[in-house]
């Protein structure tokens, strides 16, 4: 049964999954701290791609320089997003407001609003069609490994995911900023009581999460050749599904589930049809929620 075509399908699936994983990392980080979904993460990803593309068209720098600048743009976007959509809902410092689900979940809608406004504004400016990317920057050069075919983009995206995961673990567990982020994630109120500047920690989380998101955007944009204002939407949903399946706040869990989703999609195409991909992906989500309500890698955290 396992022939070359099926093996190629698994490779295809892993590379789709890596795209979701790259996005899920930043997404899950922000969720882990704030306990709320940042619907604008897909737009951060899109802005990263556009910023990178504008830089490429204007100055044609080497890819590494593009990534460094996109990281900066991502951090700025994240901080701006936090100020715009999240901070206003934390202006009451009393315990009732801090514990209020409504206050927290209102940011679900405010981030959704920012996401829609950003996407439509970008459509007005750039149009909704695919942007032309200089051919030399596309990460689509085929690399043959025996009979299997991958691209340089697959390798770069794989390497980026690994670097991001390792860097994130280092940051979270080896630095003071990471310590304060973990403290806020554990208990925002408790963190405040022991004198941690929670606003700062949250801002840092957004900056880091959005740096990862924006970098994912430009890399995936160059890899798929698709840079459009709506590019963040579909992978955003898949990253969300991966995060939920992975147990909401487990970053490695989200990555594993993202890879699993990608492979599920390509295998579905092989044995059923491409049109069934999403159905199969969401069926796995429902099955996970029914049989593992904490997610596959969840730790069953206490939620206020």
């Amino acid at each position: 049964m396992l022939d070359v075509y099926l093996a190629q399908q698994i490779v295809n699936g892993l590379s789709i999954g890596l795209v979701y994983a790259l996005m899920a990392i930043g997404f899950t980080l922000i969720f882990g701290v704030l306990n709320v979904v940042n619907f604008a993460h897909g737009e951060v990803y899109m802005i990263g791609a556009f910023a990178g593309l504008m830089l490429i068209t204007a100055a044609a720098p080497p890819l590494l320089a593009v990534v460094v600048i996109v990281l900066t743009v991502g951090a700025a976007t994240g901080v701006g997003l936090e100020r715009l959509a999240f901070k206003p809902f934390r202006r009451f410092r009393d315990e009732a407001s801090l514990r209020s689900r409504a206050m927290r979940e209102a940011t679900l809608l405010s981030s959704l609003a920012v996401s829609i406004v950003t996407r439509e504004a970008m459509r007005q400016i750039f149009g909704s069609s695919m942007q032309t990317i200089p051919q030399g920057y596309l990460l689509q050069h085929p690399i043959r490994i025996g009979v299997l075919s991958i691209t340089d983009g697959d390798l770069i995206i794989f390497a980026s995911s690994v670097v991001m995961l390792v860097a994130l673990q280092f940051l979270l567990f080896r630095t003071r900023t990471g310590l304060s982020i973990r403290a806020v994630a554990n208990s925002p109120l408790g963190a405040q009581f022991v004198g941690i500047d929670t606003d700062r920690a949250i801002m840092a989380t957004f900056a880091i999460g959005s740096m990862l998101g924006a970098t994912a955007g430009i890399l995936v944009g160059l890899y798929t050749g698709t840079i459009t204002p709506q590019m963040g939407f579909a992978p955003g949903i898949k990253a969300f599904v991966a995060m939920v399946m992975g147990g909401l706040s487990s970053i490695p869990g989200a990555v594993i589930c993202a890879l699993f989703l990608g492979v599920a999609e390509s295998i579905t195409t092989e044995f059923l049809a491409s049109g069934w991909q999403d159905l199969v992906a969401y069926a796995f989500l429902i099955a996970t929620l029914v049989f593992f309500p904490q997610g596959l890698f969840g730790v069953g955290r206490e939620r206020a």
Partner: protein
Amino acid sequence: MRISLLGALMGAAMAWAGSAAAQTGTIVIGYELPLSGDSSHYGEVFRNAADIKLQEFKDAGGMPGANIVLRYEDSKNDPKEARNIAQLFVDDKSIVGVLGDFSSTASMAAAEIYAKAGMPQLSQTASHPDFVKISKWQFRNITTQSYEGPFNAGWMHEMGVSKAAVVAIQNDWGLSCASNFADAFKAKGGTVTSIEYFNPGTRDFRSILTKIARAAPQAMYLCMFYEEGASFLQQRQELGVAAQVYGASSLFEDQLIKLAGPAANGLFLSSNFMPANPDPNVQKFVGEYKAKYGVVPNQFAAQAYDAMGIMLVALQKAGPKVTRDSLRDALAQTKDYPGVTGATTFDPVTREPQKSVVRMTISNGEYMVTQ
């Protein structure tokens, strides 16, 4: 909610203004098209082209005794919106005819309302076979898949292709594109290895390509638009799938070559419109469009330009006291309209347009006419 209420109020105000103006000889043509959302770049092209045609018509003297006005409404290519707009247009007594919508799905959703109310509707792009069968009020300025599919199947047969796979977008248009081609190809004795449908918005075709490679067809037939086409062609090159690629005319777009780069070379497709055509009508249109919008018009622009032209000729025929009925009858008599998408005649019985088609291929990053 607020916006739609505001829209309704504005619509009512415009309708009132429209009916007041009707007595002073204003004829309004409604145009429903996507101006926001994922398909907005098609709608913008339609609007650009229709504006040019209307301006040309007015510069050439216009219509004595009447001022023709276009009223655009944004359907987002959404069937629900298309129906709302159809109702709005039908209720506006100053509107005698409608252009649009973009996709077959949206056009057909709106068509049911136009059919019931008796409003002539001319779509520049709805190519689903059932569209004009809805009622005598539906017209289109695009050869349908029941014409294009067999044409391309015959072409592939001539080129010695006997085993082909079909890749099609999962919507009304994609289904009819795939089935018309597949039926004609099988009728010529060819084998269709599989028809692979993908959801709109798909940009990763590697799984489909790998699946097709297993069946090893000589050629693939693509029922999709240029953005998906560009991704498909790039990924075909990445995976090194050897089968030749033929495509529906929907792929014909300069942007396809820009997006796909060298991966686009070798694609075969047919089209009604080619900007390099030396025909003076085509050159006039291409020149004006380029001067005004800075880009060479694509096939979609050409179809909207001709749809507007056909509408204007019919209005002229029906005279300044035009009604929805008289405009429909005038549209039905369209014969040898000298458009940029070939001389167009509406079949008196089926109302299907008849046009001439050219065969093209992409070589060295350019569209070339081929045999």
